């Protein structure tokens, strides 16, 4: 038999002025199950709480209804009160008779009647409450960072700094990402390598950080605090532990026709190579498609040359499994493919290049040793035309609907650097808008125009064609209202950026949500921008949306802070109001998992007794209490009525409905 205590709060005159609190207490006392009903001036005060505590002890109450202000205000208070008196905190219900009654109604009779009904409704619900306990789960004190660009590096360093172990998994043979390819960085024009490579070295030297390059995520299981991840370490045919990075093998390799990815394919590299001088790890790798030994068994020069016997032509992919408490997704971006933009002639003319290619052309470690020449004839370009928004802000279906955010600034940087280094070069920039919000950004852009005399033309290019050995760039000059044709030597396209294509697969594995542009969705656009809605998954860098280096680094650090906050806990307290599946009713149809935003539901085959000694194996849903946030989407989606939500069960809500409708 239930013993319910009802406690009606006056809230000074806030409630008592419009609600006859004594009458409410008196009427509710007559409700079946109610053994004590009191009213008091301030229930939330220490004296009020003592009243409740004493009543629990004296009457052995099984549940408490407080008729007071909004549960959003004091539900937690009264739960604690009850807990301290030995009553399960979830055996408390609040009837909101202030915000939703006394404050909005003037007529005392009407407000009192409504308060009674709200009280009855809370009693009806309480009768079906069950004591709930929040589950706990241990936290594995190790983080996984997927992606070894500047975002991943920064997150990993910060997490390691706080004393936690971090693994970086990078799909290419070296960490560094896109930033390693850049020449200079805006708006300060410091050299990208000079600021990035020390961080890369820090990663390599930090004993808390384990770098796994040329590796991919194979599968992710588990939940916040307890992820089990399989990582595929792809065969690089060189023993990472033995290779010293001396580079001798590269010299001897006879197969030298491979396109150099690091230089955006602008020059070639041997079949065995180190991506670039400061690569981390500074270890060679063999391209099996190109290696004569691996392809037809004839060669083996590099192995002969290697002093430390690091070469292993038979190496196989290896799958390792590790456990993590948190996962940081830092998969970054790539420029979009320009095959849809024939008008700019990217695939027809060698001297139409993307901005990232230009970075390599200008980089001292690039294919032309930092001497800016055009790819076709290696001559110095005298007229260079930049085209912005190539594929950005494009809703025609050819490009991307969003602004790629970084192009305005790097184009200004390129223009400025060129004018600085080659003052006799003419530089034109076709733009739609120049967007420069950011500290010292607009000043930077204005410098390009005012100090370096870059010719900015408001308008877009309609076509690029070749005439007399020149690239003719035809476009609008909207300010002068004329169509212009600029004979150029080099055309640079500011291609839109898009999330790394691997992110889709990774998002699916970690059950993180992803938007129509393949950017990962944050838990809240404003208030939780570095977390995924899936607990334990964090977002770092461009995988969440276009951003430049300073922004990426700040987000990466913010992300690290969140990870540290999680890993610092020994145990995670779970939400007590979680869904649960009645296995006797569940048909395993998978509908609930489809609507769960957290990936909290999995299915298991379970054996059930049918009676008469018979058993049956059925697929049933199980909810992971550590992951479920208690929204209840599954409870309505579930066709068989097997899913219900603790604390807001079907029966509880229907009991409230019934109570409200009684009159």
């Amino acid at each position, binding site marked *: 038999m239930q013993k319910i205590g009802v406690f009606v709060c006056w809230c000074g005159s806030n409630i008592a002025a419009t609600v006859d609190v004594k009458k409410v207490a008196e009427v509710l006392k007559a409700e079946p199950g109610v053994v004590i009903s009191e009213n008091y001036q301030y229930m939330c005060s220490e004296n009020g709480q003592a009243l409740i505590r004493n009543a629990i002890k004296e009457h052995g109450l099984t549940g408490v209804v407080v008729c007071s202000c909004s549960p959003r205000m004091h539900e937690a208070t009264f739960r604690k009160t009850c807990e301290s008196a030995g009553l399960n905190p979830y055996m408390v219900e609040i009837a909101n008779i202030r915000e939703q009654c006394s404050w909005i109604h003037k007529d005392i009779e009407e407000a009192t009647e409504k308060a009674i009904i709200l009280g009855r409704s809370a009693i009806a619900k309480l009768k079906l409450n069950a004591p709930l306990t929040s589950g706990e789960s241990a936290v594995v004190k190790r983080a996984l960072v997927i992606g070894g660009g500047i975002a991943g590096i920064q997150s990993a360093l910060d997490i390691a700094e706080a004393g936690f172990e971090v693994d970086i998994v990078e799909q290419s043979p070296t960490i560094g990402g896109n930033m390693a390819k850049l020449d200079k960085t805006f708006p300060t024009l410091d050299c990208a390598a000079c600021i990035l490579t020390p961080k890369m070295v820090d990663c390599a030297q930090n004993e808390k950080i384990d770098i796994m390059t040329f590796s991919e995520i194979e599968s992710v299981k588990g939940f916040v605090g307890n992820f089990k991840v399989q990582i595929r370490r792809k065969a690089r045919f060189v023993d990472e532990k033995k290779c010293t990075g001396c580079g001798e093998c590269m010299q001897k390799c006879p197969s030298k026709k491979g396109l150099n990815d690091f230089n955006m394919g602008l020059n070639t590299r041997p079949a065995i190579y180190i991506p670039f001088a400061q690569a981390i790890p500074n270890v060679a790798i063999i391209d099996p498609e190109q290696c004569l030994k691996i392809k037809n068994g004839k060669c083996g020069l590099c192995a002969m040359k290697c002093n430390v016997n690091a070469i292993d032509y038979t190496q196989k992919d290896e799958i390792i499994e590790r456990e993590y408490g948190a996962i940081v997704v830092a998969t970054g971006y790539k420029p979009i493919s320009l095959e849809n933009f024939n008008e700019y002639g990217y695939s027809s003319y060698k001297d139409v290049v993307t901005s990232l290619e230009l970075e390599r052309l200008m980089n001292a470690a690039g294919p032309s040793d930092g001497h800016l020449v055009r790819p076709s004839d290696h001559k110095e370009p005298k007229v260079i035309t930049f085209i912005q928004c190539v594929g950005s*802000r494009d*809703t*025609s279906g050819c490009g991307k609907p969003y602004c790629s955010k970084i192009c305005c600034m790097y184009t200004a940087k390129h223009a400025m650097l060129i004018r600085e280094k080659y003052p006799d070069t003419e530089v034109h920039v076709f733009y739609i808008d120049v967007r420069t919000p950011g500290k010292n950004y607009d000043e930077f852009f204005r410098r390009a125009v005012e100090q370096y005399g870059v010719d900015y033309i408001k308008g*877009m290019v309609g076509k690029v064609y070749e005439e007399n050995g020149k690239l003719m760039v035809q476009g*609008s000059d909207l300010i002068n209202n004329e*169509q212009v044709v600029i004979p150029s030597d080099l055309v640079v396209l500011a291609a839109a950026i898009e999330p790394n294509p691997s992110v889709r697969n990774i998002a699916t594995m970690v059950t993180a949500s992803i938007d129509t542009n393949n950017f990962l969705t944050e838990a809240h656009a404003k208030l939780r921008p570095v977390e995924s809605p899936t607990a334990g998954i964090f977002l770092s860098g461009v995988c969440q949306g276009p951003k430049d280096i300073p922004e990426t680094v700040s987000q990466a650090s913010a992300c690290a802070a969140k990870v540290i906050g999680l890993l610092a806990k020994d145990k995670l307290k779970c939400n007590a109001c979680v869904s649960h599946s009645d296995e006797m009713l569940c048909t395993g149809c998978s509908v609930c998992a489809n609507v769960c935003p957290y990936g909290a539901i999995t299915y298991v085959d379970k054996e059930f007794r049918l009676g008469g000694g018979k058993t049956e194996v059925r697929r049933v849903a199980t909810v992971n209490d550590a992951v479920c946030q208690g929204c209840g989407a599954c409870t309505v989606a579930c066709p068989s009525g097997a899913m219900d939500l603790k604390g807001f069960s079907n029966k509880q809500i229907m009991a409230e409905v019934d109570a409200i409708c009684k009159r």
Partner: protein
Amino acid sequence: MEKNEIVRLVKERSGTDARKCMKCGKCSGRCPAYHDMDIKPHQFVSYIEKGEIDKLMQSKSLYTCLSCFACVERCPRGVAPANVIEAVRQEVIRQQGGNKIMAETVPSMIDETIPQQLLVSMFRKLNK
């Protein structure tokens, strides 16, 4: 007909939402007939948005547009300047009423200098 009504009709017939234009000028950057136009393709879009139909109806561009649809093809926002030009041209023709050229009479008018595209677009226009 009232001016606003004409603007509405032209917008409707062109099927173009001029508000989608982000004023990049790519259409005019690509237009092969640009130099023969008094009102340029990108201006057609902004004029119609501003309701300046009279200027458009008197524009010589109506007759210099080749209907090559390069502007439509190139627009990153899915706006169709050529369709606006076409719609204005149609409105002018409708208002002129009787002076329509019948499709049948076109062959007799052909001379070798008329561009093929113009012929095609005339047939498209006149056979309605």
